[in-house]
């Protein structure tokens, strides 16, 4: 069971998260916080024409939350906002056992293992929750990064 969770893809993304850091241009951002473990992830978005043109995240957390944020960022870059949120719904349903179907969306599949670790589902969905808030949180001029 455990081997399903801590497999190479997760370990790799946890160790070397993709799209980690800041963006030159940000239109939307939000932070997700899991008070239980102290995981904290801030998602930065560049949304143009209803499309996530660019994404990055910062923060700290366990391998599962970092890998999930990294995988998410790779999966939704270039997607329409609606598509990205739709993907979250499918992802959420899958990891919370509500759906039996496999994700079939490449690397994201590797997080299905959290199903067997109920107390880790929050880690796997933290970045997605932050994303959901971010798309509705345009940054003001003062928050904009140089």
């Amino acid at each position, binding site marked *: *069971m*455990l081997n399903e969770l801590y497999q190479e893809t997760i*370990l790799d993304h946890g160790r070397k998260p993709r799209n980690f850091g800041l963006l030159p241009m940000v239109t939307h951002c939000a932070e997700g916080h899991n008070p239980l*473990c*102290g995981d904290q992830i801030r998602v930065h978005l560049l949304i143009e024409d209803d499309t996530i043109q660019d994404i990055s995240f910062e923060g*700290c*957390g*366990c391998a599962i939350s970092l890998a999930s944020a990294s995988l998410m960022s790779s999966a939704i870059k270039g997607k329409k906002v609606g598509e990205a949120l739709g993907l979250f719904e499918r992802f959420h349903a899958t990891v919370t056992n509500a759906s039996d179907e496999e994700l079939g969306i490449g690397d994201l599949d590797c997080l299905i293992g959290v199903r067997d*670790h109920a107390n*880790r589902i929050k880690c796997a969905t933290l970045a997605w929750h932050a994303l959901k808030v971010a798309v509705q949180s345009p940054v003001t001029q003062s928050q904009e990064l140089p």
Partner: protein
Amino acid sequence: MMTNTSLLDQFPLLKEKVRGHRLAYLDNAATTQKPLPVLEEMDRIYRTLNANVHRGVHTLSQQATDAFEEARAKVARFIKASEPAEVIFTKGCTESINLVAQSWGLANLKPGDEILLSHGEHHANIVPWQLAAERCGAVVRPIPIFESGELDLKALSEMVSSKTKVVGIKHVCNALGTINPIAEVVRLAHSVGAICIVDGAQGLAHEPVDVQAWGVDFYAMSAHKTYGPMGVGALYGKRSLLESMPPFMGGGDMIRTVSFDGTTFNEIPNKFEPGTPNVPGVVGFGAALDWLAAFGLPQATAIENDLADRAAAELSSLPGVVLRGTASQKVGIVSFTLDSVHPHDIGTILDSEGVAVRTGHHCCMPLMRRLNVPATVRASFALYNQPEDVEALIKGVQKVQKIFA
């Protein structure tokens, strides 16, 4: 005397398997397992003595009241209080501290007064004081601790002043296992006329308590960390203080007379115990203390410390492991981190080996920040733990190292 191995028969849950492995329960600082005599005693109350206490003239009510009050006497004896009336039953250590902060605190704190709390306090001995301070205009200040987890007594001696009204400290640190020098802290608090409240959640099951010898003003207790049931605790308070304090909650049983013109309150301890209490829980708490005393606190501590020392020695020989909290006076708690592997990942992998540990900030976020770690892994020992539990822990950590190599 009971032996450590024959003890396991009294804890059926410890024979259960978790994820296909023998359960190595090392989360005793979160809650201990309950021995059969405690479970049976609580069951006996509902089966044979179920009646409301302090109310009926009928025999059953008197018997239930006797059992309830006997438990109060047991708690008083266990902590060496001068009389049972100084023991108030609550729903736990957290409520006990809130009682003091809301009752004594709101009645006595003035703008500019200082509440000094150790930097290592559990949130349960920080937040109630912040709430009271906010209402009264008082200030909460942290007492520095060393990297080892030990309290900086010299700093405390320089911090106390005529402004100091409360000094709060935990008897034993739940996150690191440090045993705090209660007598000295009480002496420093009293030197400026402040009260000293001790959070005894982790102390009661592992360290002798002598509230009179220490001169402590309040000592808060939790039954479930001491082999008793959840949802029950107690507050020790000096008679003179408890008598001077206004009620914390109002209701039945805490009054002498009630009229719409005004109410007069009952004597202690009833003044602080409105409503029907958790009678089986309170009786179970008393049974747990009897059970622990029969086993012997020094014997229990010897077992726990031996296992914790072994675990600490073996863990520190593993590459990347850093032990957190290295005070000379500690109970059987081993807190550690491993390279940059997050404690939650360690906890999940240990769980897959049947090893139950706590991972996280242990409700001590200021302490974690002081140690500059987001969280730690904590293995905490109880008197029923076995050498196999240490072996399973070490094997589990080695597995983590392999996965995250």
